[in-house]
């Protein structure tokens, strides 16, 4: 408990988190702080390259054990069961209609890269190591929930004979070959292949200023999140609570599963964070295409303006304590 407090406070006094909060508040105050989107997109690419490369280089150094395969199975499992659980919570408890339930479920089953990056930075600050292959787990967890949710909607709606609109080709392209997956796996491969020598070449850009650049990125993310605050009312009280409690539930599931397969604390935290996080880049684009009747205000606001800030500010230290408890 005391440890949780210490970690929470240390997290809350990290410049990264504080700049996120600053961005959030600045936008709420309707400050005219403009966020050049190009910069945000450029930084997103930077972080994917940085963590991918670092993960690959780490694997090159320490090798891969069998735990990778078990981990990959767990990753797919988590990506498949979280949307199902989420759907039932939304539809049965929250009485949210089937389409919006499926749409939201897809987001919570998928993952948020920035939350993962922040968790890595948190582990660095408390000097807890993690395995390079966990970056691959993130890539693996990005798409299954999207497929599962689309499947769920088809099952639920099969009687209604809803005009089917499955863009197979675009969906698979968008989910398997989407930007972040290709770039993540690619960067891992490059990091693996170019090893510690390559690491030396790129580390003044990808390692040394990593945390500093993260403050700038989280400031921008805070502004993006704060910009949606006006749509809170539209979201409603149930979905708001869903947005801060579902991550904890998903986190617990992941913490337990990753403990069972015998992962170390760092990797367990990362699995927990991945499960707790909700997608706001890949999932919205896929779901908008597949479920046009679902309301994008719901899922974008929830994942970007509720769950993301919650995870970044409070979630990560809480999940860390959680992982420490379960052993």
């Amino acid at each position: 408990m005391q440890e949780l407090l210490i970690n929470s406070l240390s997290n809350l006094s990290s410049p990264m988190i504080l700049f996120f909060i600053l961005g959030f508040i600045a936008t709420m105050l309707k400050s005219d702080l403009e966020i050049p989107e190009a910069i945000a997109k450029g930084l997103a690419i930077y972080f994917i390259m940085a963590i991918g490369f670092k993960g690959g280089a780490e694997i090159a150094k320490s090798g891969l054990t069998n735990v990778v395969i078990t981990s990959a199975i767990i990753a797919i499992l988590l990506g498949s069961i979280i949307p199902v659980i989420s759907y039932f919570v939304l539809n049965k408890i929250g009485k949210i209609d089937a389409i919006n339930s499926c749409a939201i479920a897809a987001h919570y089953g998928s993952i948020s890269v920035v939350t993962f990056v922040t968790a890595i930075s948190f582990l660095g600050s408390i000097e807890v190591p993690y395995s390079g292959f966990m970056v691959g787990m993130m890539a693996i967890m990005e798409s299954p929930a999207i497929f599962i949710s689309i499947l769920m909607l088809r099952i639920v709606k099969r009687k209604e004979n809803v005009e089917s609109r499955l863009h197979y080709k675009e969906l698979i392209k968008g989910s398997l070959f989407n930007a972040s997956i290709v770039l993540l796996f690619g960067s891992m491969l490059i990091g693996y292949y170019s090893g510690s020598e390559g690491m030396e070449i790129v580390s003044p850009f990808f390692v040394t200023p990593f945390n500093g650049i993260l403050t700038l990125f989280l400031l921008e993310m805070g502004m993006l999140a704060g910009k949606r605050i006006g749509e809170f009312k539209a979201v409603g009280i149930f979905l708001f609570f869903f947005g801060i409690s579902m991550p904890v539930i998903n986190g617990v599931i992941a913490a337990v599963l990753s403990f069972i397969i015998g992962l170390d604390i760092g990797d367990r935290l990362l699995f927990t964070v991945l499960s707790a996080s909700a997608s706001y880049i890949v999932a919205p684009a896929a779901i908008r295409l597949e479920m046009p009747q679902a309301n994008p205000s719901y899922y974008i606001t929830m994942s970007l303006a509720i769950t993301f800030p919650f995870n970044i500010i409070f979630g990560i230290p809480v999940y860390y304590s959680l992982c420490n408890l379960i052993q």
Partner: protein
Amino acid sequence: MKKLEIIIETIGLNSVIRILEKQNISGYSIIERVLGKGSSGLRQGGELSNVMKNVLVIIVDEPDKINLVVKEVKQLLKDFSGVMFISDVEVEN
């Protein structure tokens, strides 16, 4: 000649282009990053997924060809947010 203007959410652009290609439309123009408001609410950008942005597609062509496009895009607009309007123009070449 007729000018058809289609304002549609960004993820629908590919489908519009496919229709234009199918109908052998000789030329079109695209303006990206169009924000707006409509029956599906505000689309004011400010996210990294481009789900909250529109594009404007401008097509100038024979009335007959425009009508064929209109018919197909109408179908498309059942699934995508957007509007479409036609006006008369005189083409100078």
